[in-house]
């Protein structure tokens, strides 16, 4: 981590960089019919910038809910949720949408591509929220599709692509706005072994080469191995002392 203390050099105080995501005492419940079901209770967690963290836990543990909260597509009932220094739980809805557009890239288990749009158009979609010209958009889309290795399939529709290819299009879409945070909910859940491996390798490269912070929910241990940090959730609570770091 840090260099060993040298008695001969005057030491400057080293403050660790502020975490990208800072969560304090987060709680969330849902209403199912007449019942109120608690999903998350008193979650506190820090996620450093540049980390690749896997949220694991059995079904119903609240891991997806936590992901949704961090990504800004759901609101906590109580607690503090700072992302990049901004308390997103306080943002009004319209601002939250703008915030997501600028800071979050999404990768879903079932890719969530628009079936009536080509790969190119799917990747271009988030840019429609910006003021870029058509030429500028084209430049970025082609670059990002090149990065995921699908430059030659730009004009294909999702139905004409394999599962692995569709997920790569989704990754390209997640990258296109150069977001602060990439959230992935079971990204390999619908892929065969080989495609899954490819996708996980790609996510790793995004993390190490581009410095993207990635938060991934998975129940697959193989997928979790690709991540740097690991957090376990069970019945809405973080299991104690489980934030395992790993060497880069």
């Amino acid at each position, binding site marked *: 981590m840090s260099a060993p203390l040298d008695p001969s050099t005057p030491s400057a105080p080293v403050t660790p960089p502020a975490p990208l995501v800072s969560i304090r005492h987060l709680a969330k419940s849902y209403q199912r019919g007449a019942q109120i079901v608690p999903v998350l209770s008193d979650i506190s967690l820090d996620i450093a910038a540049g980390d690749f963290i896997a949220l694991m836990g059995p079904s119903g543990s609240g891991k997806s809910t936590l992901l949704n909260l961090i990504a800004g*597509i759901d609101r906590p009932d109580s607690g503090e949720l700072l992302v990049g220094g901004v308390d997103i739980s306080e943002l009004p*809805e319209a601002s939250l949408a703008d915030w997501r557009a600028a800071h*979050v890239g999404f990768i879903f288990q079932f890719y969530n591509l*628009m079936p*009536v*749009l080509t790969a190119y158009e799917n990747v271009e*979609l*988030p840019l429609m929220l910006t003021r870029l010209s058509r030429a500028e958009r084209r430049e970025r889309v082609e670059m990002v599709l090149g990065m995921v290795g699908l430059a030659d399939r730009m004009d294909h529709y999702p139905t004409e692509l394999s599962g692995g290819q569709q997920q790569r299009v989704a990754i390209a879409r997640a990258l296109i706005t150069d977001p602060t945070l990439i959230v992935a909910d079971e990204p390999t859940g619908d892929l065969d072994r080989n495609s899954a491996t490819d996708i996980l390798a790609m996510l790793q490269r995004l993390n190490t080469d581009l410095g993207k912070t990635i938060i991934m929910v998975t129940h697959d241990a193989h997928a979790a191995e690709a991540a740097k940090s690991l957090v376990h959730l069970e019945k809405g609570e973080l299991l104690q002392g489980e934030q395992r770091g790993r060497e880069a």
Partner: protein
Amino acid sequence: MVIPLHYIARNVWARRLTTALTAGGLALVVFVFATMLMLDAGLKQTLVTTGERDNVVVIRKGAETEIQSAISRDQAAALEMYPSIAMTPEGRPMASREAVVLISLTKTGYTTPSNVVIRGVSPLGVSLRPQVRLTEGRVFKPGSSEIIVGSSLAKGYGNVRIGDHLRFAQRDWTVVGHFDAGGSGFDSEIWGDVDQLMQSFRRTSYSSMVLRLANTDAFDKFRTDIDVDPRLANEAKREQQFYSDQSKALSAFINILGLTLTTIFSVAAMIGAMITMYASVANRVGEIGTLRALGFQRTNVLMAFLIEAVLLGLVGGIAGLLCASLMQFASFSTTNFQTFADLSFRFLLTPAIIVKTLLFSMAMGLIGGFLPALRASRLNIVDALRAR
């Protein structure tokens, strides 16, 4: 329109069958709507274009139509002498004494007869209406039992070809010509010599007089002069105004009928659009969730579905309009309630009607699609993403 148009349009195309059925329902309503508008436009054109601006029609006071009116020979002579009346180069007043009667003729393909207008005109009568042009044969000779037939009659009735004889008022009348009056009311009339016709029908008074004003501004003075003239019990109207007034009841009837029918039908079609749009939203809940996650606002989603609904309306509108435009080849004839005479007119498609119709169909789509679009915009992101 942040959400791209091609996304919206392609979704309409992707659900082709549903789009076709819904647009089909809308198209039918549009067809009825456009046809009614075209019918009214055709009626107005027929009547408004009937007559000349500088011609004045004089009838008896209190009579609304020529059929009800009577003008004696003395009154006719007095009217011709008015200074406001234009003169021919030979020095004769440009006036036509006219007698209008109705006879029964049977249309081709019908068993019950219709009332057809026979108009006796003076020698100048034809030239007073420059819009009337001879298309076949020649004008009747003054003093003869010859008649000429308007183009609508020539088309709709089989027994009025050149050389045919019509028998009425105890005489045989020979058709010697056909004329075209530019789609005006005269196309539904038969013209002949006024004195011969009056003799045959044993009438002693004319129905009306048509006079050409020397100066178009002289009309108001002419009208008041006639009003106070003790010899006359007549009133005057500009020829175009006269004929336009005679269609008011028919025009109002067509408009009210059309409006009522269209309103009822449009509700049914809008229900169809609503059902379709609700299903469209329901099928794409996952996509809506994704769009919102990506950062599109609720209003963006609302707009996208509203535009989809409007597109649906537009497709229906174009289809209905295309079918309605085919009606231009048909003609419509009915008895004008006010004059009791059979009147033929066409379906007229104007640019204004095209615009009105398309706006109407898009509005139907919009109204039908509003609640579903609202629902789409109000979806909860997490629930929507989970729903797929």
